[in-house]
């Protein structure tokens, strides 16, 4: 048995000796540190409010359908309750000029749709586009890792979708944009955008967010709702137990206690700490910053509100109300837990609502998902975290040439057709008879539709936000806008609105260690009193540097 290795062993001798010398040199590193330098920090802020000659002009787009009947309070987009008449095509000619297949990368949450060869939906849309788009669909949960890898390797597809919450995690995004993506300013700034009328109708704030290093680097996918998070609950199950949703923090704990029944395999929550922070009015602008009583920037963990929220959440963990799978592994699928009734409450983006309702009501009779209106744990008006960031950005690979870039922009423009156009019907519902059937209240997706449509084209474009009718969930739009309108007055004012921030390297490097320490406290592995030590470490590890950056941005704002 030893022969194969023994034979190889002699040949490696010289190589290993060589390595020995190398290792000795590395070991001497500590002695040579006199001549070493520290890594530079690349902090910067860009005030997009004062930029000129970069942002596209807003040009309203008229579509033939009547105005929406469910009206949202700004910034909540309005919506339709019924399927409107008069849907027509708005883009007469195919955007593609028969160029090479467009490679695109987009995220998907859940099951990946079939690829181009086996996907009738992609084929149908591609036929309209004139130039086919081939999607590389990646798991949305680990999308940031994938993004970091392809950016670092400088190997990007023609069209790259980057969700906004992942973009903030990407270090040196400005350098990455400059090195890898086309500067779209010459193509879209000012009146130039009129060549792409669908994109010209995007709200200006969405374009403001697409600026890196004072240039326009992406096409935004404007947000269709200003809330990053909501607490959803299984109304059907709560009704069955004769309970109602909580309106105070004590009721939340009480309801949690009543619905938790490990013997039956039921727990109350997934990790709802972010929502709890909102209830205690912890600031949430720019991923956890706000202004202190003295008007200086303050990080969420430094506030007394945060301490109270952490104390409450620790109580929830200690009482065993969070499902053990969520506690026990990163891989736990809490959506699945909510769907199967193993948890009753779950915090997630608004985007979860309609999709889960439409799909699960076919599986579980009476399935009903509803959001818990946000309340204040400490009296007074509630605080609702806002989010004006676009859903995602579409970047175009650098150096493809003017013809190709305008072709890609036309394709994005086609995919950006708003609700009320036949382009949008094809993009959102697929082919009639195949992916959806037409009912009086609008298109209803078939099983094939659910399988093949996974927002592929949605994630390489954007649209003027308006809620289309949801025939599968007829009451959804009214429920959403009722909830949204009720929450809208309490949206937190972002002191740094329109300002893009590139965080100091040290601050970014400590985001995960910081959240680890908070997790330790919240889950009871460290006492709450350790929070002061954590705050001290935060300040020393880039926290104060980031604070100075934010303070500086405030001083310069509007200049």
């Amino acid at each position, binding site marked *: *048995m030893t022969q194969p*290795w023994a034979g190889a062993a002699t040949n490696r001798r010289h190589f290993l000796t060589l390595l020995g010398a190398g290792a000795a040199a590395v070991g001497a590193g500590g002695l040579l540190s006199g001549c070493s330098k520290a*890594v530079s920090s690349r902090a910067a802020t860009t005030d997009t409010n004062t930029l000129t000659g970069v942002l596209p002009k807003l040009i309203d787009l008229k579509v033939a359908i009547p105005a929406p009947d469910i009206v949202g309070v700004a910034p909540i987009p309005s919506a339709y309750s019924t399927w409107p008449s008069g849907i027509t095509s708005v883009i007469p000619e195919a955007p593609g000029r028969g160029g090479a297949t467009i490679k695109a990368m987009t995220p998907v949450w859940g099951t990946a749709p079939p690829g181009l060869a086996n996907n009738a939906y992609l084929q149908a849309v591609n036929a309209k586009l004139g130039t086919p788009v081939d999607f590389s669909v990646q798991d949305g949960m680990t999308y940031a890792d994938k993004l970091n890898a392809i950016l670092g390797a400088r190997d990007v597809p023609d069209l790259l979708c980057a969700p906004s919450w992942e973009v903030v995690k990407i270090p040196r995004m400005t350098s990455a944009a400059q090195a890898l993506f086309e500067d779209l300013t010459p193509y879209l700034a000012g009146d130039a955008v009129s060549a792409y009328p669908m994109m010209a109708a995007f709200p200006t704030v969405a374009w403001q967010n697409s600026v890196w290093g004072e240039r326009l680097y992406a096409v935004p996918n404007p947000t269709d709702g200003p809330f990053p998070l909501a607490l959803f609950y299984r109304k059907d199950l709560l009704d069955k137990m004769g309970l109602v949703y909580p309106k105070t923090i004590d009721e939340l704990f009480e309801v949690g206690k009543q619905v938790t029944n490990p013997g039956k395999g039921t727990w109350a929550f997934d990790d709802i700490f972010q929502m709890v922070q909102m209830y205690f009015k912890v600031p949430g602008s720019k991923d956890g910053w706000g202004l202190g009583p003295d008007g200086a920037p303050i990080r969420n963990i430094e506030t007394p509100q945060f301490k109270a929220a952490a104390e409450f959440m620790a109580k929830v963990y200690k009482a065993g109300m969070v499902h053990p799978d969520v*506690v026990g592994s*990163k891989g736990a699928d809490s959506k699945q837990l909510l769907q199967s009734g193993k948890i009753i409450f779950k915090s997630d983006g608004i985007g979860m609502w309609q999709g889960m309702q439409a799909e699960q009501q076919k599986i579980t009779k009476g399935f009903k998902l509803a959001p818990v209106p946000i309340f204040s744990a400490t009296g007074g008006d509630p605080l609702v975290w806002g989010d004006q960031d676009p859903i995602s950005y579409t970047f175009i690979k650098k150096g493809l040439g003017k013809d190709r870039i305008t072709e890609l922009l036309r394709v994005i423009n086609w995919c950006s057709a708003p609700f009320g156009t036949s382009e949008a019907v094809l993009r959102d519902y697929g082919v009639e008879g195949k992916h959806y059937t037409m009912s009086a209240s609008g298109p209803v997706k078939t099983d094939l539709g659910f399988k093949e449509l996974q927002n592929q084209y949605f994630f390489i474009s954007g649209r003027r936000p308006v809620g289309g009718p949801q025939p599968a969930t007829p009451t959804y739009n009214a429920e959403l806008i009722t909830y949204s309108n009720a929450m809208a007055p309490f949206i937190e004012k972002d002191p740094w609105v329109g300002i893009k921030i590139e965080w100091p390297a040290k601050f970014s490097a400590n985001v995960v260690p910081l959240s680890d320490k908070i*997790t330790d406290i919240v889950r009871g592995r460290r006492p709450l009193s350790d929070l002061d030590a954590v705050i001290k470490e935060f300040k020393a590890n880039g926290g104060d540097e980031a604070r100075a950056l934010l303070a500086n941005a405030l001083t310069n704002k509007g200049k």
Partner: protein
Amino acid sequence: MSTREAIAAAGSADHPTPPAASAAAPRRRARRPTVVRNRVPLRARLRRDWALLAMVAPAGLLLLVFHYLPVIGNVVAFQDYDPYAGNSAISALLSSPWIGFGNFQALFADPAFWDAFVNTVTITAFQLVFFFPIPIALAILLHSVLSPKLRAFVQTVAYLPHFFSWVLVITFFLQMLGGDGLLAHAIRALGGTPWNILTNPDTFLVLVTSQAVWKDAGWGMIVFLAALAMIDINLYEQSAVDGAGRWRRMWHITLPGLRPVIVLLLILRLGDALSVGFEQYYLQRDAVGRGAAEVIDTFVYYQSIATGNYGYGAAAGLFKAAIGLVLILAANKFAHLIGERGVYSKL
């Protein structure tokens, strides 16, 4: 763990100092002047061995492309590396500013790194004692099973989990031992209170080791089974005739027969001492906290890959490789002292 990985891991330490290496070479030649092997001319040797060379070529190419060429990338450990500098990946490497040992300095001054280091070494040491012998014991046990059908069946069942991903293994443990798992429900049904198996930082060491055993013990057994098959059956028969019992046969025949393989795998394992895997710790990090689950690999991921601070991560990786190399060399030396050939040996 293969020899190839160990060599490649050691290989990352090679790059920075070619001068030192060439300085060592003449000394060696001076000590041993006659090179006997080169008597046959190169051409004749090529003609003689071309088939062997052709057979080894694909593996050599693989080694070159995926193990030796990436070694060049280690240079970023000495740079303030910016992946977007220049206009290609290569020019980024060339044009990033040189900062000497700045990354190493920052690394060694980082208490979080030493936490990860201590965790890693603890886990390795624990697994060396409680995991490493298990495949040997399993192999000896299985080797004594006479029915070939039963043996093949047990062997297949035992090594199958090796092909499961860590996500699957941890989900499996969660479904079995978690708070909503089979065991917890059984205990509750009997009126008891289940205890925290998966979320206790104090017993995390035992948990990860048992997961590793469940996943990989069967796989590790295969090498030892093959080694057992090489032992001359006559030895057993003769010693039995001489009156040796079961234990004496194991002590004097089986274990000495396995010794070269055991020593070899031990050396390779030591070279890999600072790699305990990534997914297993990443997935269970929130469950037990960073204090228990942060190992060097997750440290590199969070501090380097996730933050784009590649130079820092490369420095940590290089440090890991240097330690691995020292351990391999020391263990190999030790193997020579006890009369084994080890991973490599002198002529």
